């Protein structure tokens, strides 16, 4: 227990690091995912193909492989990024594929008449998508996007393996230093619960708030 109590501030910095990593990566993943989903439903052939290729390749590649590839492989190719940036880029790229597929399913769930009506009013594809289809699509996928966010909190732990000291990294270091792995682990589990449970509640509240009333 002392292993945890003596290191509470260290844990706090770990939690903070996990939070900032998650939020930064989510911002990247969300923007990327929406753009890629728009490409996939769009009329431009090469963009459709490029978006589909990106989703299929990155989604089927383990996150750990992406981390190792970007951390050890990219410097060989002459591109060296700071560790933290690498972590945000990898997490955004990986989560972005899931966001893209989720948003695409939301777009497909919007009645075709909505887009047809907007088109017949003379709106362009981009106007139809941004002004009519996406606002409705995003509302329907709040819950699955929330699950992705919570999965991202957990996935961000892999950043520890390239040297970002977030919650899992903190736990590992305290475990090694105090040899009390059980206490360190239980504290980390509690901390993760404190992050994921409120996130779940917030997602539920958001879902109720933006739901389309029919």
């Amino acid at each position: 227990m002392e292993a945890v109590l003596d290191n509470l501030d260290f844990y706090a910095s770990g939690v903070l690091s996990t939070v900032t990593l998650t939020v930064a990566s989510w911002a990247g993943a969300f923007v990327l995912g929406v753009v890629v989903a728009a490409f996939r439903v769009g009329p431009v052939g090469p963009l459709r193909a490029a978006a589909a290729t990106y989703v299929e390749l990155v989604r089927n590649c383990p996150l750990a492989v992406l981390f190792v590839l970007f951390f050890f492989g990219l410097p060989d190719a002459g591109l060296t990024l700071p560790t933290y940036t690498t972590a945000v880029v990898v997490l955004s790229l990986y989560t972005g594929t899931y966001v893209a597929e989720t948003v695409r399913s939301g777009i497909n769930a919007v009645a075709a008449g909505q887009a047809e009506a907007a088109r017949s009013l003379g709106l362009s594809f981009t106007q139809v998508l941004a002004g009519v289809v996406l606002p409705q699509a995003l509302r329907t996928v709040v819950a699955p996007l929330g699950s992705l966010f919570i999965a991202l909190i957990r996935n961000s732990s892999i950043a520890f393996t390239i040297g970002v000291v977030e919650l899992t990294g903190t736990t590992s270091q305290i475990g090694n230093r105090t040899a009390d792995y059980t206490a360190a682990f239980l504290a980390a589990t509690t901390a993760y619960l404190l992050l994921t449970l409120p996130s779940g509640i917030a997602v539920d509240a958001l879902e109720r708030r933006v739901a389309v009333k029919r």
Partner: protein
Amino acid sequence: MAVASAAAAVALAAVVGLALRSLAAAGQLDAELWSPLTDPRVLRFFVGGARNTVVAAGAGMVGAVTLGLVLAVGRLSRTAALRGLAGAWVQFFRAFPLLLLLLFLAFGLPAYGIDLALLWTVVAALSLYNSAVLGEIFRAGILSLDRGQAEAAYAVGLGYWSTLRLVVVPQALRRMVPAIVSQLVTLLKDTSLGYFVLYEELLRRGVLAGQDFGNTLQSLLMVAAMYVAMNLVLSRVARRLEVRQRRRYRAGGIDVTGGPEDLVAVEPQPASTSGT
């Protein structure tokens, strides 16, 4: 749209071209970095890693399916304590990262005198973690069965356990096959975390080969390509199973809704509807 397509094609080609040029400038396209990957011995080394990955994922799946079944039955149990226990288990193992669990099993358990072999550390972590996911999938599967199935079983005199074992679980399991296969994709990907506790799966072998030949980027791209290939095949299988299943239920299988079709529903399924 033709203009937009052409512009997009040019832009994409430019991005690919720039990437290739910077790779070439860094000497990463040199033949001697890629040629080890065509050596049969090196290929065998990679395939051996892939085998270790598949073994760990497969064993983890068996463990997770077993635990998941127990959890699903527990969550639907008539005993409140069992329901609570199974529910707490599911919540607990869904709350934190798999990596944390893996590290605990690898470094924390030896303090209790439990020193698992590397393979079993990975398998145990995968089983525990995915048991929660599969437990929920099975529960949905059992709940999706018509209540009449269990009621009919009780009516012909089967007890609680016989009803579960002979009537409910076999049907739920069969319905869940597509979900299990697609969960296998997740398991296969998660096995790569074994790299961080030194289990010699595909990723670790890729890193080792990269160190040996000084071609980390190329070896890791090979690892990524092998993973993508395996997972694409699995996803395709899952999708096919799902389509087949949907066709089967439309053809009048398990779903008992009332009316004259009821007589058909209790007959064994004709072989022709199981697809090809």
